[in-house]
């Protein structure tokens, strides 16, 4: 479905995840974060950069990966993206929701 955000039209699925990453930009990320009641800080963006890096390398995301990332620890990750951190961070990053159970 179509969604109008940050003066741009984007395609999203029924859970609100972008279906075409090329449509993503930082303004869209900011607006998506606001919808999740998250105010983006430099630390948030560092995490999003890490997620984009993993996505481009086609490496699956997991909470264990976050722990090993060197970017952020798990406690901080939950604090920055409360209530389902990997789900929210990937939504803001404009990539598909992770399918892993761990």
């Amino acid at each position, binding site marked *: 479905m179509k969604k109008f955000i940050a003066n741009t039209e984007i395609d999203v699925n029924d859970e609100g995840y972008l279906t075409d990453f090329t449509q993503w930009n930082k303004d869209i990320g900011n607006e998506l974060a606001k919808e999740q009641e998250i105010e983006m800080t430099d630390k948030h963006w560092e995490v999003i950069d890490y997620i984009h890096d993993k996505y481009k390398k086609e490496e*699956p995301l*997991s*909470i*264990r*990966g976050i*722990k090993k990332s060197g970017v952020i*620890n*798990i*406690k901080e990750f*939950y604090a920055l993206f*409360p*209530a*389902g*951190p*990997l*789900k929210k961070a990937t939504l803001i990053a404009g990539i598909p929701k992770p399918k*892993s*159970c*761990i």
Partner: protein
Amino acid sequence: MSTKVKKMLFILSKATIENAYAAFVMANGARMEGIESEIFFTFFGLEAIQKKKLEHLKVATVGNPGMHIPTMIGGLPGMEALATKMMKKEMEKLDMPPVDEFLEILSDSGCKLWACKLAVDMFHLEREDLIDDLDGILTIGDFYSRADQEGCQLLFI
């Protein structure tokens, strides 16, 4: 009234690696979905939070039809260790953390970890025998009081 699950409480009563991981994966999965989670370790489940034992949890090769090994063969020396080694290898492939790291991830994720007081007394354990990340030692009554809210589910493993 909202029917959404808000909190998952797990009681882990067994020491086999497959049961411990079932509890860990579900408790972690809950936190990843924004659901609160807690694990109450009782009886043999306490092995999973004993510093000296948690690295040595084994797969059950006897009395476990899912293993497809005849019970008598499953009981031979070394079978448990072999099956456990194979399972750990498969889990590593899926990037599943070992027990100690999994407990650390759970604790950091905000999952509460409790030891059962009765079982701790029965096995003559001290607080220092148990992992540092443990949130405390509770009676079953204390644990039930933590379930006293809407949208809470309790699961025995």
